[in-house]
């Protein structure tokens, strides 16, 4: 297990050094995106419309934050990760189109995303579910908000972060998926538990 501290924009070469189980901290620019922001970004891409921000080398956070506006400035109240599997249907195209390098969320992602990460060079960083204060404290400022018409949780929040983490690299750019590995082992353990505790039918 190695610990990496990377600053955006992150290059493909840098991200390919990471392996599952490594710990990653990200500094620089991170944008939030849930289902709707993913969908809109991909529509823009299809129509060759530029995004509000160039996402190449940046980190994307699956998060619907609670924000507060004081005067003209936005502040983060809470910003924990949301379940990533909902974004599985968009993420391969998203990685391919925008060359983001780090996807952050909880619960892991599936095969399509894993393949895209291997092909185009990106990783999935698992952030601790519920750890909203840890996340909020690493967010130094809200640079801007785009697509607020989607609602506060679904909008694209552009954030300045400092050592955002710890992120467990759960999918690397070499085709490894820690959540899938764990699931396989857990399935094997099922039989062992049934046997040891006399639960077999």
């Amino acid at each position, binding site marked *: 297990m190695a610990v990496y501290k990377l600053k955006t924009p992150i290059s493909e070469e840098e991200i390919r050094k990471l392996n599952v189980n490594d710990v990653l901290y990200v500094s620089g620019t991170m944008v939030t995106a849930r289902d709707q922001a993913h969908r809109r970004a991909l529509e823009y891409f299809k129509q060759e419309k530029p995004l509000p921000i160039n996402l190449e080398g940046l980190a994307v956070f699956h998060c619907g934050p609670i924000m507060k506006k004081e005067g003209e400035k936005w502040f983060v109240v809470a910003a924990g990760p949301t379940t990533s599997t909902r974004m599985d249907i968009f993420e391969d195209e998203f990685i391919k189109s925008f060359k983001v390098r780090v996807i952050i969320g909880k619960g892991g992602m599936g095969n399509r995303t894993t393949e895209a990460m291997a092909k185009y060079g990106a990783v999935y960083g698992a952030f601790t579910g*519920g*750890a909203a*204060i*840890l996340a*909020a404290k690493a967010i130094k400022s809200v640079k801007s908000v785009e697509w607020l018409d989607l609602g506060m949780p679904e909008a694209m929040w552009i954030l300045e972060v400092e050592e955002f983490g710890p992120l467990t690299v759960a999918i690397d750019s070499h085709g490894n998926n820690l959540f899938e590995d764990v699931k396989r082992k*857990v399935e094997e353990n099922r039989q062992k538990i049934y046997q040891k505790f006399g639960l077999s039918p």
Partner: protein
Amino acid sequence: METVNIVENVAFNLLKQAVIYLPEDVKQALQKAYAEETSEAGKTQLKAILDNVELAEKYQAPICQDTGTIIFYVKAGAEAKNLDKIEEALIKATRRATVEVPLRPNSVNPFTQKNSGDNTGRLIPYVNWEIVLGDSIELTVMPKGGGSENVCISGMLVPGEGIKGLKKFVVDAVLKAGAKPCPPNILGVGIGGGSDIAMKIAKKALLRPLNVPNSDPEIARLEKEILEAVNMTGIGPMGLGGKTTVLGVNINYAYRHPASYPAAVAFNCWAARRATARIGADRKVEYLTHKVE
């Protein structure tokens, strides 16, 4: 001050304490899990949880963005006064806590999908009543997270399979839940009564501190055995692998109908929040789970 106002104030304080400070027994269990966890990813996650718990205390902010559905347990002394005013006081306290702590608005009309915005609505906050001897009122609040609630399960087991069937039911529930309920979890297991009763007592079992063993040694042994079994799954903290999937198993039971074996598993996440206080007839307030300045 009027008793009703005291109840409102105490309930507000309990809500605030509960969402900011984890109970000491849960914190200790997490620390112990961190010391003993051997999986690297699991250890990283437990460390992040402990850091988050510490930051929440330091900044007086909720430990998790999901401050849950608000559930109260009231032990009302049969001779206590103004019991008819308590529910109103609890609703007011919930509204105030939503603004002042703040809590995330988590109360949605299931038909219109409209969020009430203040954590109240029909039957919410939910109040569980129990009448006890004496003239004091004991209030407990349990802000219950949605992610762990989503994997709670109840079922009707085959009576002939007895405890063996029960063990398998709990193990299967944990295997099915996987990473979803933000493990490590605490399990409340309810047996008997009927399908509603089993879930109700399962959830109530979550109120028992992790360092208080079951008063029945046979059931205490069963709790240990199930704990060992579910921690063999290897799901680990946040489902990233490891030996800490569950911090504790608390069993609660009622007698059952000869033909049925109702069972329920209530999941709590690592953010296992609860707080209790007692209000005496002399209006003296004693906080039982948290220290207040």
